[in-house]
Every structure is written in C-alpha cells, then in structure tokens.
C-alpha cells in the first residue's frame, strides 16, 4: 500500500457551487495514487482547532497532479477552509482509507448512490468505472435538498444520472430510493455514500434484492490513521485490530460491505 503522508501544499482554486457547498482543487502528488472513496485529512490553520477535518476525495487529476474536494461548510473548520483563496497554503494528510472496490463492478450493472455531501466521491468512482470499462452499466442516483444539483453535470459525463430532491424542485420528489423506484432502475451491485438513514435504506434494499452493496461510513475522527480508536463502527465479525466487533472507519473503511456492518 502507498505510504500515507502529510504535505503542505497550495490551493489551486475554490468556488462555491451551491449554497454552503465548496469546490476546491488542491495541488498535490497524492493525486498519483488516490483512489475513489479515499479521503484526506485537512488541518485548520487556526490552532484553536486541533483536529484535522476528514473530507472525501471528489476527483483526481493525475496528469496535472491535483485533487478535488467538494464539501459542505458544517462548522468552524470547514468555514475556515471555505475562505482559502488560490495560492493559500493548505496542510493535508493523505491518502486515507480503503476506497471503493472497483473489481466488484466487473461485468455488473452498478448503482452509484450519493446523498447530499456524500455525492462527491461518486464523481471519481463514475470516472474510474467508465475508464476501466469493465462494468456492464453505471447509473448514478443522487439525492439533493433542492434543485442546486452540484456535480450532476460532471457525473453525467461518465454515467446516466437520476436525481431526487427533498423539495421536489428537480427529478423525483423524495429520496434516492424513491428515484430508483420511480425510474424502474435495477442493478447487480451498489456503491453508496451519504447520510446514515440513506445508507440503512441501501443496506435493506441490497438485502431484499440479494445483491452486494458497498457503503462509505463516517464518524467523528481524531487521528485519521487508526491509532485513536475514535471512529469505530459495529461489525458483524470481530475486527482485525481490537477483536471486539468495532472496525476503524478511517483505516478499515471508510468503505465497508454493507453486510459486514451493523448500522
């Protein structure tokens, strides 16, 4: 496995692409090895904030050596991040976590399901699956709050995209599962990232259909590298580290096979 490292680098660009949703490109050779579904830890400059912010990788550009993150401002740390302009120093630790298993998509019809700020990793995943060309069919189902459909056009370059919105202002009114039903979509395997109620629905749906689902989990983290045991999730089998059915989301995940975790 590629060694994790902390690097001080620069912001290439940043724009607000929806209310409170920011789109940042970061210059880093971590792009060479980053995988869809992996994440970065970003260290705030304000020293009153001790802990790095885990943010998923949205897109990688290996040729130009840059990574893209798309995140929602949710507190003081992401607020600071949202103020960074082009050229600003940024300290990141990467590439963290396991990422989505591309091999699980070979020959299969794949759903990429993203909810809210769980949508960004689906972009790189759609891109990888398209470039690999081994999946039989890739369909993105993205759940938004409203018609601010961030990243929809980007994902549309690599896959068919269906949309659900909470307020019904675009696509199916309701959630991603409603969009799947309304459009009569079908798949052989699911990869998903989003809020816990959505992931629970995905897990249930996969069980009912008898198909595999890979879901990306999140939890409050401190170290991001597997040492502090802060970000654990309940697993069906004993975990490799502590042997107590508590896997570390930062290192054993964040992507888990839905049937391996109790959520």
């Amino acid at each position, binding site marked *: 496995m590629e060694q994790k490292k902390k690097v001080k680098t620069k912001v290439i660009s940043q724009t607000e692409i929806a209310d409170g949703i920011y789109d940042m490109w970061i210059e880093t050779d971590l792009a060479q090895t980053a995988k869809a579904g992996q994440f970065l830890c970003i260290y705030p400059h304000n020293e009153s904030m001790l802990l790095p912010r885990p943010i998923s990788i949205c897109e990688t550009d290996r040729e130009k050596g840059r990574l893209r993150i798309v995140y929602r401002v949710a507190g003081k740390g992401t607020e600071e991040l949202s103020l960074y302009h082009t050229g600003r120093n940024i300290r990141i630790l990467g590439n963290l976590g396991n990422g989505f298993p591309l091999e699980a998509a070979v020959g299969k019809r794949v759903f990429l399901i993203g909810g809210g700020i769980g949508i960004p990793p689906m972009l790189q995943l759609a891109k990888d699956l398209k470039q690999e060309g081994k999946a039989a069919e890739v369909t993105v189902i993205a759940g938004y709050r409203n018609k601010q459909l961030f990243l929809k056009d980007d994902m549309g370059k690599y896959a068919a995209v269906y949309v659900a919105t909470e307020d019904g202002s675009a696509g199916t009114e309701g959630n991603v599962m409603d969009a799947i039903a309304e459009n009569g979509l079908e798949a052989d395997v699911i990869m998903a990232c989003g809020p816990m109620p959505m992931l629970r629905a995905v897990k249930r749906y996969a069980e009912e259909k008898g198909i595999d689902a890979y879901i990306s989990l999140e939890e409050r983290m401190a170290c991001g*590298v597997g040492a502090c045991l802060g*970000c654990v999730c309940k697993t069906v089998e004993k975990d490799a580290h502590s*042997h107590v059915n508590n896997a570390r989301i930062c290192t054993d995940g964040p992507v888990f096979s839905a049937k391996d975790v109790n959520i």
Partner: protein
Amino acid sequence: MNTKVKIAGVEFKNPVMTASGTFGSGMEYSEFVDLNRLGAVVTKGVASVPWEGNPTPRIAETYGGMLNAIGLQNPGIDVFIERDIPFLKKFDTRIIVNVCGKTVEDYLDVVERLGDTGVDMLEINVSCPNVKEGAIAFGQKADSLYAITSAVKKKARQPVIMKLSPNVTDITEMARAAEAAGADALSMINTLTGMKIDVHKRKFVLANRTGGLSGPAVKPVAVRMVYQTAQAVKIPIIGMGGIANAEDALEFLLAGATAVAVGAMNFANPYTTVEVAEGIEDYMKQYNIEDIHSLIGSVE
C-alpha cells in the same frame, strides 16, 4: 550533549515519549515517525480480555483541545503479547505498556502476563475517566491508590509507573500515596473530565456524555500539577498534557519532570514527537546546556 535520562534504572535515549492512547502501539504512526527517535513508546491501555469501549461519538473538539471517551477499547493481553510487543521490539526504543482493569485482579493478571515479555516498564492506568468500573476509581482515593500500587508492585517484574488523575482535590496526596506504596515513577496528567453540549440539538456531543479533555487547553494545569508533585515526592515524574512543541516539553522539564509525553497533539501533527525531541536538542545547543539533567526542575 547528553539527552539521556534514567527512570527507575531504565535508560531512555531522550526524554520524549508518547502518551498512552494517542499512539496505539506505534504501528499506525510508524508510517510517519521513525520510532527509533523516541525515548519510549507508551502503548494504548491493555486489559486482561478485549474491551469494546464506548458507543460513538467518542470524539469532540473543544477550543484548543479535545474530548475523548474511547472507553479503553483494546484487544486484550493475548493479542497484545502476540502482535504489538514483537512489533515494538523491532525498534531501538523503550517499551512502556499501559495496563488497565476493572478489578485489582484484572490489573494483576495483565502485570503477571507481561512479566517475561521483555517490556521495559509498566504504566498503571488508574485514571481513565471514561470507564465506569475500575480505572479512575482506583486513582481518586489515596487509600485505594496505595492498595493497588502495593498489589501491583508485588507482582510486577518491571518498574511501575502510576498514571495519576488530575480529577482530584490534591494531586500531591495521591502522588505521596503511590510513592509510599512503592511506585517507581509517576506519569501525569491523565485527562480532565469534561463535557460538550450541542445547543442546536440540545444533546450531549459524546455518547458517553462526559469525556477526557486533553490538548493545549490543559497544559497550564498539567505544568502546575507536575511542579507541585515534584516538590512533594522523590520519585521521577513523566509529564504530559497538551505538549505541542519543544517549548511546551521544556516547561514540563523545568517544572520537575524527568521525561515528557506527547498526546493529543499527535493527532494535530503526526510528527510532533520527533519535532519535540529535535527541538529540545536545539534549545540545549542554543543555551549551551551539556546535560539535560541541569534543566530538570530548575525553574526559579
């Protein structure tokens, strides 16, 4: 220039260690830090059997610090002996194992199992605020601390460090009780019990409601307690609490600590331990200090 220190006959190449629970058994951080550069690795607490720890969320950030309520999740002594100790033995650093338990028998069980493993020292965790039974219950009353320290000393084949809780009225009373019971050294401070409330949800942020506060926010309290304790006992002290850089570490040394440990700041910067070790050397060069011992307890 001498940066070596000795605690209970064990020599450390420099006074910089890791604080228990913030560094696992070194494996995860060995991707960033050359463990050979550290005085010692102090492991995450280990119990006689696996502990699953507390529900999540276990972590909350606070101003200049963080709360944790991990609840001492650990794989138990069997896995620890089989996996973690052999890993650490590959490095030229001292191994200090943090021992936790719910009953005195639990502690003794672990201490006994560690007897012939070749680890250098034991740190007895009688001060974790995040587990309901055992742990801190032994560290908040002088007579219970005396009792467990004596019991551990009878069984231990390695020198014993008692890790003290700051959640007491007078930490010097606890320090004296541990010393009187035969403790070889003290480490301090463990975390301060704290709480954070989400006003928008009107809920506790941590599932455990309370957690242990660590990070730079606690450093002045820790330095004060190390100073007071150094005045009260003769055994060496390993000082910790919010150390982020060499200057912070030097405060602890000047206050009377023989060694220091880096805790929460490993999370803010995985290279903190080595930067502290190098920074202490730079300071000694800057002030022409030949021997680190001339710094220890030298505050005026």
